């Protein structure tokens, strides 16, 4: 009796230790569990189609959460990233008549410019990132609302190439191109964070900026580059989203703001900087996408949906912190 209880605790302790050593495995387990729960609500979900549909949704979310991950590592955050996504998508769509390449470049330029502005505000003028990007989001909303009636007037149907990239699939309609785009971005991000000087500086700046500055680094450059990178990621996510919905309006990416932060946090990136990585974020984005599908299949009112969503996000964050803090 006592023995089996003791055995159970050691097993649990060993499991906990394992999960701690490799948090991605724990997150993967949670993701799998959610997939199974969703599958029990809607059996058809456990099919190739279900998987494809979840991945399609996770791709833009994962990319936006990548932007948050980079910034959170430096102790920053970007509340304008969904506005950047929307703005880029808008520009890309309205420039679609000039061909996909021009459209995409113009779209990405939006992310570049806005990201740089955010970066300068935060790194040079030392504005709190939360406030800087909140203000920037308002500025962009006003600007784009005005522009939709002036310089961006006209069709916002996206170019066929973008549509194909965002929504099309290959290999017998199994593997969406957008997932390939996401995978490529993931590889680049993971490489940047783990194998480059800039990635290392991101962690360092997030941990102790003074120490990095005294080491001879111009930390403002690191930060500005981070905001620019986040802006570009926002643009790419926005353009993919535009391709998904086929056309753009100014609410395109709104719904992704809080989930983009949540995905990074669930994935184990600390909002205070210095700790985390993109692998966890990928899983975080997948988890949230599955959760969304689950809520769709649950067929309940928005009140219950919000209750379930909030509770699960809290439970996940708590569980993860429990693992991380137990040492």
């Amino acid at each position, binding site marked *: 009796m006592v023995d089996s209880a003791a055995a159970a605790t050691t097993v649990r302790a060993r499991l906990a230790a394992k999960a701690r050593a490799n948090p991605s495995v724990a997150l993967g387990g949670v993701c799998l569990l959610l997939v199974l729960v969703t599958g029990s609500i*809607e059996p*058809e*979900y456990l*099919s190739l*189609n*279900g998987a*494809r*549909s979840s991945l*399609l*949704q996770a791709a*833009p979310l994962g990319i936006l959460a990548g932007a948050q991950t980079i910034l959170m590592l430096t102790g920053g955050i970007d509340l304008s990233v969904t506005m950047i996504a929307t703005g880029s998508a808008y520009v890309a769509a309205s420039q679609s008549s000039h061909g996909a390449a021009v459209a995409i470049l113009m779209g990405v330029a939006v992310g570049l410019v806005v990201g740089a502005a955010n970066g300068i505000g935060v790194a040079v003028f030392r504005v709190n990132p939360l406030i800087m990007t909140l203000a920037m989001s308002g500025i962009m*909303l*006003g600007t*784009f*609302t005005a522009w*939709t*009636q002036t310089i961006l*007037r*006209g*069709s*916002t*149907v996206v170019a066929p190439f973008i549509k194909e990239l965002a*929504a*099309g*699939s290959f290999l017998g*309609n199994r593997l969406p191109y957008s997932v390939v785009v996401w995978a490529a971005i993931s590889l680049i991000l993971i490489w940047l964070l783990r194998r480059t000087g800039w990635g290392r500086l991101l962690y360092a700046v997030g941990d102790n900026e003074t120490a990095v500055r005294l080491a001879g680094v111009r930390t403002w450059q690191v930060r500005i580059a981070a905001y620019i990178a986040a802006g570009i990621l926002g643009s790419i996510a926005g353009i993919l*989203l535009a391709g*998904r*919905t*086929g*056309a*753009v*309006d*100014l*609410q*395109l*990416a*709104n*719904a*992704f703001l809080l989930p983009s932060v949540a995905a990074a946090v669930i994935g184990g990136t600390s909002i205070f900087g210095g700790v985390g990585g993109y692998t966890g974020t990928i899983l975080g984005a997948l988890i949230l996408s599955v959760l*969304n*599908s689950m809520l*769709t*299949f649950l*067929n309940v*009112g*928005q*009140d219950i*949906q919000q209750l379930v969503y909030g509770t699960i996000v809290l439970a996940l964050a708590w569980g993860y912190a429990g693992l991380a803090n137990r040492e």
Partner: protein
Amino acid sequence: ALPMAAEEHTHDEEMPEGGFVIGVSNTLVGNGWREQMICAIKAEATASGMVDEVIVVNRNGGPTEQIADLEGLISQGVDAIILNPTDREGLNAVIEAAIAQGIVVVAVDQAVTAEGAYVATNDQTAYARLGAEWLFETLGGSGKVVEMRGIDGVPADTDRHNGFMEALANYPDIEVVASTFTGWDPSTGAQQALDLITTQEIDGIWTSGIDYPVVEQFQVADKPFVPIVGADNNGFVAQLLDLADEGLVGAAVTNPPAIGAVGTSIAIDALLGNNPPHETILTPKVFATDNTDGLNAIYAPDEQVGWSTYVDIEPFTHYNGSADVSACKAPGE
């Protein structure tokens, strides 16, 4: 019973000849439908020739913020206020205060219960009922449908849901297999649609206005189209016209933001002392794929996908179609 305001007016005998200042209060920034509503107000004000200035206040917020904005407009001394109310009852006090000062108040899109206010709305119950009836009829009275609603708790959504249920009551063989809340958000709606059409047998979809992203998902999923009901969004109308060859069957139900222009026209009438009726309810029109001419007539190829194509509302509007609305010019601009 006429409100006190009418009495006040009687003692400046000669009726005003124009030169009005119209205040507009809106509480949703960046929403295409609302922007078009504001543009329609400006276009109608310009076309009427009676208005000197249109003052728009707009921000994201709820009744509290809107009350602040309305009181600001009152302080600025406008002649009429057109508002898209955030609440049916919460603004009554300030509206009645405005009316007491002789300001004409017109609530557009959503109703208010304030005494003496003019109300111009699209009939949301009918919007859903007409569309749903078209859908159920098209399905031959039986089949599995999805109801894609807007935001839970918003009056327009509740009205539309009621209209949908009214229609449903007459078709016992129609089964609603899923009911989702899109939040009137295109990407959310797209994802829900994709989740549903890839996993379930569906015969028809009714949407509360998130329509073209849903049609797009059939192409993403590479599934055959099912009959779909949406709003008079330009993008959806274009799809109904373009994809008819590929088997798309659908209906666009009008929910015109030009209701703002209707409100403007009513306000000017009231300011001129013409005593227009206090309640104007527009009944939606249904443009289905079997009516290509109708669809072609409302299609606006130069406008954006979110553009509501049904802009001319007789006898209220005096501007010259989509072009004027889209120019979005208030008097003097």
